[in-house]
Protein backbone atom coordinates (compact mmCIF):
# COMPACT_ATOMS: atom_id res chain seq x y z
CA UNK A 1 0.00 0.00 0.00
CA UNK A 2 1.39 3.36 -1.09
CA UNK A 3 -0.14 6.61 0.13
CA UNK A 4 0.85 10.05 -1.11
CA UNK A 5 -0.74 12.79 0.95
CA UNK A 6 -0.61 16.54 0.33
CA UNK A 7 2.68 16.44 -1.54
CA UNK A 8 3.86 19.96 -2.43
CA UNK A 9 7.18 21.02 -3.87
CA UNK A 10 8.41 24.57 -4.12
CA UNK A 11 11.80 26.12 -4.73
CA UNK A 12 13.18 29.35 -3.50
CA UNK A 13 15.75 31.47 -5.29
CA UNK A 14 16.78 35.11 -5.27
CA UNK A 15 13.75 36.16 -7.29
CA UNK A 16 11.13 34.51 -5.09
CA UNK A 17 9.41 31.25 -4.28
CA UNK A 18 8.02 29.08 -7.05
CA UNK A 19 5.45 26.42 -6.41
CA UNK A 20 6.11 23.51 -8.74
CA UNK A 21 3.81 20.83 -7.35
CA UNK A 22 0.77 21.51 -5.17
CA UNK A 23 -1.25 19.22 -2.95
CA UNK A 24 -0.85 15.90 -4.73
CA UNK A 25 -2.65 13.01 -3.02
CA UNK A 26 -3.41 9.48 -4.13
CA UNK A 27 -3.15 5.95 -2.88
CA UNK A 28 -2.24 2.73 -4.59
CA UNK A 29 -2.93 -0.84 -3.50
CA UNK A 30 -0.54 -3.71 -4.04
CA UNK A 31 -0.92 -5.35 -7.40
CA UNK A 32 -2.60 -2.32 -8.94
CA UNK A 33 -1.23 0.17 -11.47
CA UNK A 34 -1.54 3.94 -11.40
CA UNK A 35 -0.62 5.95 -14.45
CA UNK A 36 0.42 9.57 -13.96
CA UNK A 37 -0.08 11.42 -17.22
CA UNK A 38 0.70 15.00 -18.16
CA UNK A 39 2.55 17.20 -20.62
CA UNK A 40 6.25 17.83 -20.27
CA UNK A 41 6.81 20.43 -17.59
CA UNK A 42 3.58 19.58 -15.79
CA UNK A 43 5.47 18.34 -12.76
CA UNK A 44 5.10 14.60 -13.16
CA UNK A 45 8.83 13.97 -13.07
CA UNK A 46 9.10 16.00 -9.87
CA UNK A 47 6.36 13.89 -8.29
CA UNK A 48 8.30 10.75 -9.22
CA UNK A 49 11.53 12.13 -7.86
CA UNK A 50 9.82 13.01 -4.60
CA UNK A 51 8.32 9.53 -4.26
CA UNK A 52 11.78 8.03 -4.78
CA UNK A 53 13.18 10.27 -2.04
CA UNK A 54 15.41 12.16 -4.43
CA UNK A 55 14.17 15.55 -3.25
CA UNK A 56 14.48 14.98 0.48
CA UNK A 57 17.14 17.67 0.71
CA UNK A 58 14.78 20.37 -0.61
CA UNK A 59 13.39 22.79 1.92
CA UNK A 60 10.13 23.37 0.09
CA UNK A 61 8.99 19.75 0.34
CA UNK A 62 5.73 19.15 2.19
CA UNK A 63 3.29 16.32 2.70
CA UNK A 64 4.07 12.64 3.03
CA UNK A 65 4.79 9.62 0.88
CA UNK A 66 4.13 6.41 2.77
CA UNK A 67 5.25 3.06 1.44
CA UNK A 68 4.14 0.16 3.68
CA UNK A 69 3.60 2.67 6.47
CA UNK A 70 7.05 4.24 6.28
CA UNK A 71 7.42 7.87 5.26
CA UNK A 72 9.92 8.29 2.44
CA UNK A 73 10.14 12.06 2.76
CA UNK A 74 11.17 11.96 6.42
CA UNK A 75 13.67 9.12 6.04
CA UNK A 76 17.32 9.78 6.84
CA UNK A 77 19.74 8.88 4.08
CA UNK A 78 20.47 5.55 5.77
CA UNK A 79 16.77 4.71 6.13
CA UNK A 80 16.19 5.84 2.59
CA UNK A 81 18.80 3.38 1.36
CA UNK A 82 17.06 0.54 3.22
CA UNK A 83 13.71 1.61 1.78
CA UNK A 84 15.13 1.69 -1.73
CA UNK A 85 16.71 -1.72 -1.27
CA UNK A 86 13.69 -3.47 0.18
CA UNK A 87 10.51 -1.67 -0.77
CA UNK A 88 10.89 0.61 -3.78
CA UNK A 89 12.03 -0.39 -7.24
CA UNK A 90 12.90 2.11 -9.95
CA UNK A 91 12.69 1.72 -13.70
CA UNK A 92 14.46 4.65 -15.35
CA UNK A 93 13.66 6.71 -18.39
CA UNK A 94 16.76 6.19 -20.53
CA UNK A 95 17.69 2.55 -20.10
CA UNK A 96 21.10 2.81 -21.78
CA UNK A 97 22.18 5.85 -19.85
CA UNK A 98 20.98 4.38 -16.59
CA UNK A 99 23.73 1.76 -16.69
CA UNK A 100 27.32 2.77 -15.99
CA UNK A 101 29.22 2.62 -19.30
CA UNK A 102 32.51 1.46 -17.81
CA UNK A 103 31.18 -1.61 -16.00
CA UNK A 104 29.92 -4.87 -17.41
CA UNK A 105 26.19 -5.47 -17.15
CA UNK A 106 26.80 -8.55 -15.02
CA UNK A 107 28.94 -6.77 -12.48
CA UNK A 108 26.36 -4.00 -12.12
CA UNK A 109 23.47 -6.43 -11.76
CA UNK A 110 25.37 -8.55 -9.25
CA UNK A 111 26.25 -5.41 -7.29
CA UNK A 112 22.59 -4.43 -7.03
CA UNK A 113 21.55 -7.98 -6.10
CA UNK A 114 24.23 -8.09 -3.40
CA UNK A 115 23.02 -4.77 -2.01
CA UNK A 116 19.32 -5.62 -2.12
CA UNK A 117 19.46 -9.21 -0.89
CA UNK A 118 21.92 -10.71 1.54
CA UNK A 119 23.48 -13.04 -0.97
CA UNK A 120 27.17 -13.31 -1.71
CA UNK A 121 29.20 -13.41 -4.95
CA UNK A 122 28.57 -16.71 -6.69
CA UNK A 123 24.96 -16.90 -5.52
CA UNK A 124 24.24 -13.42 -6.87
CA UNK A 125 25.51 -14.50 -10.24
CA UNK A 126 23.07 -17.41 -10.29
CA UNK A 127 20.21 -15.17 -9.21
CA UNK A 128 21.14 -12.72 -11.95
CA UNK A 129 21.11 -15.45 -14.58
CA UNK A 130 17.77 -16.90 -13.55
CA UNK A 131 16.26 -13.42 -13.28
CA UNK A 132 17.41 -12.51 -16.77
CA UNK A 133 16.08 -15.70 -18.29
CA UNK A 134 12.75 -15.14 -16.60
CA UNK A 135 12.72 -11.72 -18.27
CA UNK A 136 13.03 -13.32 -21.69
CA UNK A 137 16.77 -13.38 -22.33
CA UNK A 138 17.86 -16.55 -24.05
CA UNK A 139 21.56 -16.43 -23.19
CA UNK A 140 21.92 -14.70 -19.84
CA UNK A 141 25.64 -15.54 -19.35
CA UNK A 142 26.48 -13.80 -22.60
CA UNK A 143 24.45 -10.70 -21.66
CA UNK A 144 26.12 -10.52 -18.27
CA UNK A 145 29.58 -10.35 -19.80
CA UNK A 146 28.71 -7.45 -22.11
CA UNK A 147 28.94 -3.70 -21.69
CA UNK A 148 25.77 -1.57 -21.76
CA UNK A 149 26.60 0.01 -25.12
CA UNK A 150 26.62 -3.43 -26.71
CA UNK A 151 22.98 -4.03 -25.76
CA UNK A 152 19.90 -2.55 -27.39
CA UNK A 153 17.69 -0.10 -25.51
CA UNK A 154 15.11 -2.78 -24.83
CA UNK A 155 17.73 -5.17 -23.44
CA UNK A 156 19.13 -2.47 -21.16
CA UNK A 157 15.61 -1.75 -19.97
CA UNK A 158 15.06 -5.40 -19.09
CA UNK A 159 18.30 -5.38 -17.12
CA UNK A 160 17.08 -2.26 -15.32
CA UNK A 161 13.77 -4.01 -14.59
CA UNK A 162 15.68 -6.93 -13.14
CA UNK A 163 17.52 -4.52 -10.85
CA UNK A 164 14.20 -2.98 -9.79
CA UNK A 165 12.34 -6.16 -8.90
CA UNK A 166 15.08 -8.35 -7.46
CA UNK A 167 14.04 -7.78 -3.84
CA UNK A 168 10.28 -8.22 -4.48
CA UNK A 169 9.47 -4.58 -3.68
CA UNK A 170 6.08 -3.25 -2.58
CA UNK A 171 6.20 -0.40 -5.08
CA UNK A 172 7.82 0.04 -8.47
CA UNK A 173 8.13 3.49 -9.98
CA UNK A 174 8.56 3.48 -13.73
CA UNK A 175 9.56 6.88 -15.07
CA UNK A 176 8.61 6.97 -18.76
CA UNK A 177 9.91 3.42 -19.12
CA UNK A 178 9.19 3.23 -22.84
CA UNK A 179 9.63 6.76 -24.13
CA UNK A 180 13.06 6.12 -25.63
CA UNK A 181 12.14 2.76 -27.19
CA UNK A 182 10.63 1.94 -30.57
CA UNK A 183 6.91 0.93 -30.66
CA UNK A 184 7.51 -2.81 -30.94
CA UNK A 185 9.96 -2.93 -28.05
CA UNK A 186 7.66 -0.66 -26.08
CA UNK A 187 4.90 -3.27 -25.98
CA UNK A 188 7.32 -6.03 -25.18
CA UNK A 189 8.74 -4.08 -22.24
CA UNK A 190 5.26 -3.29 -20.92
CA UNK A 191 4.41 -6.98 -21.15
CA UNK A 192 7.53 -7.84 -19.21
CA UNK A 193 6.66 -5.33 -16.50
CA UNK A 194 3.05 -6.48 -16.27
CA UNK A 195 4.17 -10.10 -16.19
CA UNK A 196 6.47 -9.54 -13.24
CA UNK A 197 3.79 -7.49 -11.53
CA UNK A 198 1.33 -10.35 -11.86
CA UNK A 199 3.90 -12.67 -10.33
CA UNK A 200 5.15 -10.44 -7.51
CA UNK A 201 2.12 -8.25 -6.90
CA UNK A 202 3.80 -4.89 -6.42
CA UNK A 203 2.03 -1.56 -6.86
CA UNK A 204 3.18 0.13 -10.05
CA UNK A 205 3.35 3.86 -10.66
CA UNK A 206 3.67 4.44 -14.36
CA UNK A 207 4.67 7.97 -15.28
CA UNK A 208 4.09 8.73 -18.93
CA UNK A 209 2.89 11.20 -21.52
CA UNK A 210 1.75 8.32 -23.69
CA UNK A 211 -2.05 8.14 -23.26
CA UNK A 212 -2.30 4.91 -25.16
CA UNK A 213 0.03 3.25 -22.69
CA UNK A 214 -1.63 4.92 -19.69
CA UNK A 215 -5.17 3.83 -20.51
CA UNK A 216 -4.28 0.39 -21.78
CA UNK A 217 -2.07 -0.83 -18.99
CA UNK A 218 -3.28 0.78 -15.79
CA UNK A 219 -6.21 0.51 -13.40
CA UNK A 220 -6.18 4.11 -12.30
CA UNK A 221 -5.11 7.26 -14.10
CA UNK A 222 -4.02 10.53 -12.50
CA UNK A 223 -3.93 13.56 -14.77
CA UNK A 224 -1.38 16.24 -13.86
CA UNK A 225 -1.64 19.81 -15.08
CA UNK A 226 0.39 22.76 -13.84
CA UNK A 227 1.73 20.87 -10.83
CA UNK A 228 -1.68 19.63 -9.62
CA UNK A 229 -3.58 16.39 -9.95
CA UNK A 230 -6.58 17.78 -11.79
CA UNK A 231 -8.34 14.45 -11.96
CA UNK A 232 -7.92 10.88 -10.77
CA UNK A 233 -10.13 7.97 -11.51
CA UNK A 234 -10.42 4.50 -12.93
CA UNK A 235 -8.92 4.24 -16.39
CA UNK A 236 -12.02 3.17 -18.29
CA UNK A 237 -14.19 5.69 -16.48
CA UNK A 238 -11.92 8.59 -17.40
CA UNK A 239 -11.82 7.39 -20.95
CA UNK A 240 -15.60 7.17 -21.26
CA UNK A 241 -16.72 10.03 -19.04
CA UNK A 242 -13.87 12.48 -18.38
CA UNK A 243 -14.71 15.04 -15.74
CA UNK A 244 -12.15 17.82 -15.94
CA UNK A 245 -12.12 19.86 -19.18
CA UNK A 246 -8.41 19.12 -19.53
CA UNK A 247 -9.01 15.38 -19.26
CA UNK A 248 -11.76 15.54 -21.83
CA UNK A 249 -9.52 17.53 -24.17
CA UNK A 250 -6.76 14.98 -23.70
CA UNK A 251 -9.10 12.09 -24.32
CA UNK A 252 -10.39 13.80 -27.39
CA UNK A 253 -6.84 14.31 -28.73
CA UNK A 254 -6.18 10.69 -28.04
CA UNK A 255 -9.32 9.16 -29.58
CA UNK A 256 -9.58 11.50 -32.55
CA UNK A 257 -6.01 11.07 -33.70
CA UNK A 258 -6.20 7.36 -33.14
CA UNK A 259 -9.62 6.38 -34.45
CA UNK A 260 -10.95 8.88 -36.97
CA UNK A 261 -9.13 10.07 -39.99
CA UNK A 262 -10.86 13.44 -40.21
CA UNK A 263 -7.95 15.45 -38.88
CA UNK A 264 -6.49 15.53 -35.40
CA UNK A 265 -7.55 17.59 -32.46
CA UNK A 266 -5.28 19.73 -30.38
CA UNK A 267 -5.61 21.95 -27.34
CA UNK A 268 -5.09 25.61 -28.20
CA UNK A 269 -2.66 27.80 -26.29
CA UNK A 270 0.32 27.06 -24.08
CA UNK A 271 0.42 25.99 -20.44
CA UNK A 272 1.22 28.78 -17.98
CA UNK A 273 4.90 29.03 -17.15
CA UNK A 274 5.77 28.00 -13.62
CA UNK A 275 7.19 31.49 -13.15
CA UNK A 276 3.77 33.05 -13.65
CA UNK A 277 1.87 33.30 -10.42
CA UNK A 278 -1.85 33.06 -11.06
CA UNK A 279 -4.53 32.88 -8.40
CA UNK A 280 -7.06 30.86 -10.40
CA UNK A 281 -7.12 27.49 -12.12
CA UNK A 282 -3.96 26.98 -14.16
CA UNK A 283 -5.92 25.61 -17.07
CA UNK A 284 -7.97 28.83 -17.23
CA UNK A 285 -6.31 30.23 -20.36
CA UNK A 286 -6.92 27.10 -22.42
CA UNK A 287 -10.21 25.90 -20.99
CA UNK A 288 -13.33 25.92 -23.18
CA UNK A 289 -15.73 25.65 -20.26
CA UNK A 290 -14.26 28.31 -18.01
CA UNK A 291 -16.37 30.24 -15.49
CA UNK A 292 -15.73 33.62 -13.90
CA UNK A 293 -14.58 32.11 -10.64
CA UNK A 294 -11.90 30.08 -12.45
CA UNK A 295 -9.83 33.21 -12.94
CA UNK A 296 -9.74 34.28 -9.33
CA UNK A 297 -9.75 31.14 -7.23
CA UNK A 298 -8.18 27.74 -7.56
CA UNK A 299 -10.76 24.93 -7.29
CA UNK A 300 -10.52 22.38 -4.48
CA UNK A 301 -10.38 18.66 -5.12
CA UNK A 302 -13.84 17.06 -4.84
CA UNK A 303 -15.22 13.53 -5.19
CA UNK A 304 -16.76 12.58 -8.46
CA UNK A 305 -18.01 9.05 -9.06
CA UNK A 306 -15.21 6.86 -7.73
CA UNK A 307 -12.45 9.40 -8.45
CA UNK A 308 -11.58 12.98 -7.61
CA UNK A 309 -11.53 16.12 -9.71
CA UNK A 310 -10.34 19.70 -9.16
CA UNK A 311 -12.69 21.90 -11.17
CA UNK A 312 -15.37 24.50 -10.42
CA UNK A 313 -17.82 22.63 -12.65
CA UNK A 314 -18.36 20.06 -9.90
Amino acid at each position, binding site marked *: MTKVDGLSISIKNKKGTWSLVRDVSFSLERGRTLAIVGESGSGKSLITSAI*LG*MLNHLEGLEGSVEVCGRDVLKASSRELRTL*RRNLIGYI*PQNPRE*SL*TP*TLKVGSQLVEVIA*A*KTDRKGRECRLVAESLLSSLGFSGPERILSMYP*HQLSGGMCQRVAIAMAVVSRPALVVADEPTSSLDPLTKHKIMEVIKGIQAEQGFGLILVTHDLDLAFSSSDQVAVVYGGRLVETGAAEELLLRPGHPYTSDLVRCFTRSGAEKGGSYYIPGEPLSIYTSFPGCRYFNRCRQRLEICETKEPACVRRDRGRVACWLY
Partner: protein
Amino acid sequence: MLVYILKRAGFNLGVMLVVVTLTFFLMHLLPGDPFMSQRLNPEIKANLYAKHGLDQPVARQYLDYLSALARFDLGESLKYPGRTVNEIIAESFPVSAAVGILALVLALVLGVTLGVLAGVWQSRWPDRLILAFSTLGLSIPNFALGAGLVYLFALKLKIFPVAMLEKPIDLVLPVLTLAAWPAAVITRLIRTEMIEVLKRDYIIAAMVRGLDPARVILRHALPNALPAVIHYSGPLAATLLTGSFIVEKIFALPGLGQYYITSIGNRDYNLVAGITIFYTFVLLVATFLTDLLAFSMNPQLRYRNGS
Protein backbone atom coordinates in the same frame (compact mmCIF):
# COMPACT_ATOMS: atom_id res chain seq x y z
CA MET B 1 43.80 -1.37 -32.82
CA LEU B 2 46.96 -2.38 -34.64
CA VAL B 3 46.21 0.14 -37.37
CA TYR B 4 45.80 2.81 -34.73
CA ILE B 5 49.14 1.95 -33.13
CA LEU B 6 50.92 1.94 -36.48
CA LYS B 7 49.39 5.26 -37.46
CA ARG B 8 50.43 6.83 -34.20
CA ALA B 9 53.95 5.40 -34.50
CA GLY B 10 54.25 6.86 -38.00
CA PHE B 11 53.06 10.26 -36.85
CA ASN B 12 55.45 10.20 -33.89
CA LEU B 13 58.34 9.36 -36.18
CA GLY B 14 57.40 12.38 -38.29
CA VAL B 15 57.36 14.62 -35.23
CA MET B 16 60.80 13.32 -34.23
CA LEU B 17 62.14 14.12 -37.68
CA VAL B 18 60.76 17.66 -37.51
CA VAL B 19 62.30 18.16 -34.08
CA VAL B 20 65.68 16.79 -35.15
CA THR B 21 65.75 18.99 -38.23
CA LEU B 22 64.65 22.12 -36.37
CA THR B 23 67.14 21.56 -33.59
CA PHE B 24 69.96 20.87 -35.97
CA PHE B 25 69.51 23.95 -38.09
CA LEU B 26 68.64 26.25 -35.20
CA MET B 27 71.85 25.23 -33.46
CA HIS B 28 73.85 26.01 -36.59
CA LEU B 29 72.18 29.41 -36.82
CA LEU B 30 73.56 30.26 -33.40
CA PRO B 31 76.13 32.97 -33.36
CA GLY B 32 79.53 31.80 -32.11
CA ASP B 33 80.94 28.30 -32.08
CA PRO B 34 81.74 25.71 -29.43
CA PHE B 35 85.46 26.41 -29.28
CA MET B 36 85.52 30.20 -29.23
CA SER B 37 86.02 30.59 -25.49
CA GLN B 38 89.17 28.48 -25.43
CA ARG B 39 91.93 30.50 -27.06
CA LEU B 40 93.18 27.84 -29.40
CA ASN B 41 95.60 28.29 -32.24
CA PRO B 42 94.00 27.92 -35.69
CA GLU B 43 95.64 24.58 -36.37
CA ILE B 44 94.24 22.83 -33.30
CA LYS B 45 90.90 24.46 -33.95
CA ALA B 46 90.88 23.13 -37.50
CA ASN B 47 91.73 19.70 -36.15
CA LEU B 48 88.87 19.85 -33.68
CA TYR B 49 86.52 20.95 -36.48
CA ALA B 50 87.62 18.07 -38.64
CA LYS B 51 87.30 15.60 -35.77
CA HIS B 52 83.63 16.51 -35.21
CA GLY B 53 82.92 16.94 -38.89
CA LEU B 54 82.21 20.63 -38.49
CA ASP B 55 84.31 21.47 -41.56
CA GLN B 56 81.86 19.62 -43.80
CA PRO B 57 78.96 21.38 -45.57
CA VAL B 58 75.88 21.71 -43.34
CA ALA B 59 73.78 19.39 -45.50
CA ARG B 60 76.46 16.69 -45.18
CA GLN B 61 76.63 17.16 -41.41
CA TYR B 62 72.85 16.85 -41.24
CA LEU B 63 72.80 13.57 -43.12
CA ASP B 64 75.64 12.17 -41.02
CA TYR B 65 73.76 13.15 -37.89
CA LEU B 66 70.58 11.44 -39.08
CA SER B 67 72.36 8.23 -39.98
CA ALA B 68 74.04 8.13 -36.57
CA LEU B 69 70.69 8.81 -34.95
CA ALA B 70 69.18 5.82 -36.69
CA ARG B 71 71.70 3.77 -34.70
CA PHE B 72 70.64 5.58 -31.49
CA ASP B 73 74.02 7.30 -31.44
CA LEU B 74 73.67 10.91 -30.34
CA GLY B 75 77.33 11.70 -30.93
CA GLU B 76 80.08 13.01 -28.73
CA SER B 77 79.91 16.06 -26.53
CA LEU B 78 81.91 18.94 -27.91
CA LYS B 79 82.57 20.47 -24.53
CA TYR B 80 83.29 17.39 -22.44
CA PRO B 81 85.85 15.66 -24.65
CA GLY B 82 85.66 11.91 -24.73
CA ARG B 83 82.17 11.70 -23.30
CA THR B 84 79.28 10.73 -25.52
CA VAL B 85 75.89 12.32 -25.24
CA ASN B 86 74.39 8.89 -24.57
CA GLU B 87 76.65 8.54 -21.51
CA ILE B 88 75.70 11.93 -20.15
CA ILE B 89 71.99 11.19 -20.53
CA ALA B 90 72.37 7.72 -19.02
CA GLU B 91 74.12 9.23 -16.03
CA SER B 92 71.88 12.19 -15.28
CA PHE B 93 68.46 10.98 -16.39
CA PRO B 94 67.98 8.55 -13.47
CA VAL B 95 68.32 11.44 -11.00
CA SER B 96 65.67 13.48 -12.80
CA ALA B 97 63.46 10.44 -13.29
CA ALA B 98 63.56 9.41 -9.62
CA VAL B 99 62.40 12.82 -8.47
CA GLY B 100 59.93 12.96 -11.36
CA ILE B 101 58.26 9.61 -10.71
CA LEU B 102 57.83 10.37 -7.02
CA ALA B 103 56.38 13.79 -7.85
CA LEU B 104 54.05 12.26 -10.43
CA VAL B 105 52.71 9.68 -7.99
CA LEU B 106 52.28 12.30 -5.28
CA ALA B 107 50.51 14.70 -7.65
CA LEU B 108 48.15 11.99 -8.92
CA VAL B 109 47.24 10.67 -5.46
CA LEU B 110 46.79 14.13 -3.98
CA GLY B 111 45.03 15.58 -7.01
CA VAL B 112 42.58 12.74 -7.51
CA THR B 113 41.69 12.52 -3.81
CA LEU B 114 41.16 16.24 -3.35
CA GLY B 115 39.38 16.55 -6.69
CA VAL B 116 36.90 13.79 -5.85
CA LEU B 117 36.24 15.30 -2.41
CA ALA B 118 35.69 18.75 -3.92
CA GLY B 119 33.46 17.41 -6.67
CA VAL B 120 31.29 15.43 -4.24
CA TRP B 121 30.88 18.38 -1.89
CA GLN B 122 30.44 20.90 -4.67
CA SER B 123 29.94 24.49 -3.45
CA ARG B 124 30.18 23.52 0.20
CA TRP B 125 33.03 24.33 2.52
CA PRO B 126 35.37 21.39 1.72
CA ASP B 127 35.04 22.30 -1.94
CA ARG B 128 35.74 25.97 -1.31
CA LEU B 129 38.76 25.13 0.83
CA ILE B 130 40.20 22.75 -1.76
CA LEU B 131 39.55 25.19 -4.58
CA ALA B 132 41.28 27.97 -2.68
CA PHE B 133 44.27 25.71 -2.11
CA SER B 134 44.46 24.69 -5.73
CA THR B 135 44.22 28.28 -6.95
CA LEU B 136 47.10 29.08 -4.66
CA GLY B 137 48.99 26.05 -5.96
CA LEU B 138 48.46 27.21 -9.52
CA SER B 139 49.69 30.70 -8.80
CA ILE B 140 52.80 29.89 -6.78
CA PRO B 141 55.52 28.97 -9.26
CA ASN B 142 58.01 26.28 -8.32
CA PHE B 143 60.92 28.73 -8.00
CA ALA B 144 58.95 30.49 -5.27
CA LEU B 145 57.78 27.32 -3.55
CA GLY B 146 61.16 25.57 -3.77
CA ALA B 147 63.18 28.42 -2.35
CA GLY B 148 60.48 29.08 0.26
CA LEU B 149 60.59 25.46 1.42
CA VAL B 150 64.38 25.51 1.57
CA TYR B 151 64.35 28.73 3.55
CA LEU B 152 61.71 27.53 6.00
CA PHE B 153 62.52 23.85 6.51
CA ALA B 154 66.23 23.72 5.81
CA LEU B 155 67.58 27.07 6.97
CA LYS B 156 65.18 28.09 9.74
CA LEU B 157 63.72 24.85 11.12
CA LYS B 158 66.66 22.70 10.03
CA ILE B 159 64.44 19.66 9.45
CA PHE B 160 65.80 18.87 6.02
CA PRO B 161 69.31 19.35 4.65
CA VAL B 162 70.07 22.25 2.32
CA ALA B 163 70.42 21.03 -1.25
CA MET B 164 72.14 17.70 -1.03
CA LEU B 165 71.40 14.32 -2.43
CA GLU B 166 72.65 11.52 -0.22
CA LYS B 167 69.75 9.98 1.69
CA PRO B 168 66.19 9.36 0.47
CA ILE B 169 64.90 12.05 2.84
CA ASP B 170 66.77 14.64 0.79
CA LEU B 171 64.22 14.06 -1.95
CA VAL B 172 61.28 15.27 0.14
CA LEU B 173 61.58 18.98 -0.61
CA PRO B 174 62.29 18.70 -4.36
CA VAL B 175 59.43 16.23 -4.80
CA LEU B 176 57.02 18.46 -2.89
CA THR B 177 58.09 21.45 -4.97
CA LEU B 178 57.69 19.60 -8.21
CA ALA B 179 54.34 18.00 -7.31
CA ALA B 180 52.48 21.09 -6.08
CA TRP B 181 51.53 22.58 -9.43
CA PRO B 182 50.40 19.40 -11.20
CA ALA B 183 48.49 18.37 -8.07
CA ALA B 184 46.54 21.62 -8.27
CA VAL B 185 45.80 21.12 -11.96
CA ILE B 186 44.67 17.53 -11.44
CA THR B 187 42.46 18.54 -8.52
CA ARG B 188 40.62 20.99 -10.74
CA LEU B 189 40.35 18.59 -13.66
CA ILE B 190 38.91 15.80 -11.52
CA ARG B 191 36.58 18.19 -9.72
CA THR B 192 35.07 19.48 -12.97
CA GLU B 193 34.72 15.98 -14.37
CA MET B 194 33.18 14.60 -11.17
CA ILE B 195 30.59 17.38 -11.09
CA GLU B 196 29.62 16.50 -14.66
CA VAL B 197 29.59 12.76 -14.09
CA LEU B 198 27.59 12.97 -10.85
CA LYS B 199 24.73 14.54 -12.81
CA ARG B 200 24.50 11.61 -15.20
CA ASP B 201 21.55 9.24 -15.26
CA TYR B 202 23.55 6.18 -14.29
CA ILE B 203 24.74 7.77 -11.07
CA ILE B 204 21.23 8.87 -10.10
CA ALA B 205 19.91 5.42 -11.00
CA ALA B 206 22.61 3.72 -8.95
CA MET B 207 21.69 5.84 -5.93
CA VAL B 208 17.98 5.13 -6.37
CA ARG B 209 18.78 1.41 -6.55
CA GLY B 210 20.03 1.76 -2.99
CA LEU B 211 23.78 1.33 -3.49
CA ASP B 212 26.22 2.84 -0.98
CA PRO B 213 27.14 6.41 -1.94
CA ALA B 214 30.84 5.73 -1.40
CA ARG B 215 30.62 2.73 -3.71
CA VAL B 216 28.75 4.71 -6.33
CA ILE B 217 31.40 7.42 -6.26
CA LEU B 218 34.41 5.10 -6.42
CA ARG B 219 33.05 2.38 -8.72
CA HIS B 220 30.59 4.18 -10.97
CA ALA B 221 31.62 7.84 -11.04
CA LEU B 222 35.41 7.92 -10.68
CA PRO B 223 36.30 5.65 -13.63
CA ASN B 224 34.21 7.89 -15.86
CA ALA B 225 35.91 11.02 -14.55
CA LEU B 226 39.46 9.69 -14.96
CA PRO B 227 40.07 9.88 -18.74
CA ALA B 228 40.64 13.65 -18.62
CA VAL B 229 43.38 13.14 -16.03
CA ILE B 230 44.91 10.25 -17.92
CA HIS B 231 45.18 12.35 -21.05
CA TYR B 232 46.76 15.13 -19.06
CA SER B 233 49.19 12.89 -17.25
CA GLY B 234 51.02 11.86 -20.44
CA PRO B 235 52.65 15.21 -21.12
CA LEU B 236 52.85 15.73 -17.36
CA ALA B 237 54.82 12.53 -16.88
CA ALA B 238 57.24 13.61 -19.58
CA THR B 239 57.73 17.02 -18.01
CA LEU B 240 58.28 15.59 -14.55
CA LEU B 241 60.47 12.67 -15.62
CA THR B 242 62.83 14.82 -17.59
CA GLY B 243 63.16 16.98 -14.53
CA SER B 244 62.64 20.59 -13.92
CA PHE B 245 65.53 22.95 -14.60
CA ILE B 246 64.43 25.15 -11.78
CA VAL B 247 63.99 22.49 -9.14
CA GLU B 248 67.32 20.96 -10.12
CA LYS B 249 68.92 24.36 -9.87
CA ILE B 250 67.45 25.25 -6.47
CA PHE B 251 68.21 21.87 -4.92
CA ALA B 252 71.48 21.38 -6.84
CA LEU B 253 70.40 18.02 -8.23
CA PRO B 254 72.76 16.62 -10.89
CA GLY B 255 69.91 16.01 -13.33
CA LEU B 256 69.45 16.33 -17.05
CA GLY B 257 68.03 19.85 -16.94
CA GLN B 258 71.28 21.27 -15.59
CA TYR B 259 73.21 19.83 -18.51
CA TYR B 260 70.71 21.21 -20.98
CA ILE B 261 71.08 24.77 -19.78
CA THR B 262 74.87 24.71 -19.59
CA SER B 263 75.18 23.04 -22.97
CA ILE B 264 73.17 25.81 -24.61
CA GLY B 265 75.45 28.42 -23.11
CA ASN B 266 78.46 26.38 -24.27
CA ARG B 267 77.18 25.97 -27.84
CA ASP B 268 77.65 22.25 -27.38
CA TYR B 269 75.62 21.41 -30.50
CA ASN B 270 75.60 17.68 -30.02
CA LEU B 271 74.60 17.76 -26.38
CA VAL B 272 71.79 20.27 -26.96
CA ALA B 273 70.42 18.39 -29.92
CA GLY B 274 70.78 15.08 -28.09
CA ILE B 275 68.94 16.21 -24.98
CA THR B 276 66.22 17.93 -27.03
CA ILE B 277 65.64 14.78 -29.03
CA PHE B 278 65.60 12.72 -25.87
CA TYR B 279 63.03 15.04 -24.23
CA THR B 280 60.76 14.85 -27.24
CA PHE B 281 61.12 11.10 -27.36
CA VAL B 282 60.10 10.74 -23.71
CA LEU B 283 57.13 13.04 -24.28
CA LEU B 284 55.93 11.11 -27.32
CA VAL B 285 56.26 7.76 -25.58
CA ALA B 286 54.47 9.00 -22.46
CA THR B 287 51.62 10.53 -24.47
CA PHE B 288 51.29 7.39 -26.51
CA LEU B 289 51.15 5.15 -23.43
CA THR B 290 48.54 7.28 -21.67
CA ASP B 291 46.42 7.42 -24.81
CA LEU B 292 46.52 3.64 -24.95
CA LEU B 293 45.58 3.50 -21.27
CA ALA B 294 42.62 5.83 -21.79
CA PHE B 295 41.67 3.78 -24.81
CA SER B 296 41.66 0.53 -22.88
CA MET B 297 39.66 2.05 -20.03
CA ASN B 298 36.81 3.05 -22.31
CA PRO B 299 34.88 -0.06 -23.34
CA GLN B 300 32.99 1.86 -26.03
CA LEU B 301 36.16 2.83 -27.87
CA ARG B 302 37.76 -0.51 -27.26
CA TYR B 303 34.94 -2.49 -28.80
CA ARG B 304 34.20 -0.16 -31.68
CA ASN B 305 37.72 -0.16 -33.12
CA GLY B 306 38.84 -3.42 -31.67
CA SER B 307 38.05 -7.07 -32.10
